[in-house]
């Protein structure tokens, strides 16, 4: 197994775990945690490809990962604010109970 393959497989595992959390858990905060894990897996892919790519001195992949970290922080703030607002409104964070917009 080459080093790049190991890093990409690890990123795939983290992504699958995050997707599993986001699809199977019932609490809205845990779904946000799963989304954060998926974003982290994408960052790991970016940095691994940057390090093993032909021109690592251009810093492209690492810059992309740094911007992605900043955007993920903003996403976490907005998502958790939404969860808190919904909890104040409906007194629950259970996703299976959020059926008001169900068709």
């Amino acid at each position: 197994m080459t080093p790049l393959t190991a890093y990409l497989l690890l990123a795939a595992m983290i992504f699958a775990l995050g997707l599993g959390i986001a699809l199977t858990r019932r609490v809205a905060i845990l779904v946000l945690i799963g989304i954060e894990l998926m974003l982290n897996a994408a960052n790991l892919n970016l940095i691994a490809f940057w390090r093993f790519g032909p021109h690592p001195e251009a810093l492209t992949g690492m810059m992309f990962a740094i911007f992605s970290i900043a955007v993920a922080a903003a996403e976490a703030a907005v998502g958790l604010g939404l969860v808190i607002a919904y909890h104040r409104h409906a007194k629950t964070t259970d996703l299976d109970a959020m059926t008001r917009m169900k068709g």
Partner: protein
Amino acid sequence: MIFGVGLPFFLAAMITLIGALAAATMRNLVHCALSLTVAFGGLALIYLQLDAQFAGFAQILVYIGAVAILVVFAILLTRGVGTTLIHVYAQKWVLGLLLAAGVFALLGWAVLTSIPRVAAPAIAVPTVLAIGQSLMYDYVLPLEITAVLLTVALIGAVIVAMPEFKKNGGAE
């Protein structure tokens, strides 16, 4: 060498995977948030191994320092400590698990069949000076847009989470 990879990578990968797995399976929400922090720490170790020191320390500052604290605050604001959930998993959790396993199988197959054997080119570790110059010359527009996005997102998060005000000006 364990499974063809070096020991430091193996240890960091195990820390990350065990943290993520614990976040996926634990019943107590606070325990989930703490194991998520462990996973973020393992990822920071892997970034450090990949010569991306700046990204590794940014990961520690932003994720362990800010996002994990934010998650813990949100848990404490919406639910008391120590409450263990009765219904942890969604009604159609089997479907979600199958979907996640399918995605992992697809990604793993694609990685294992298509990656050529490449070795890491030897580079000098990028200095903070080089990263700063790159941010100020090549990536100055994304940097400014990120600054605007962060400001808008934080103001928006505060407004969304703020209690609604009645027309006579008092909080509810």
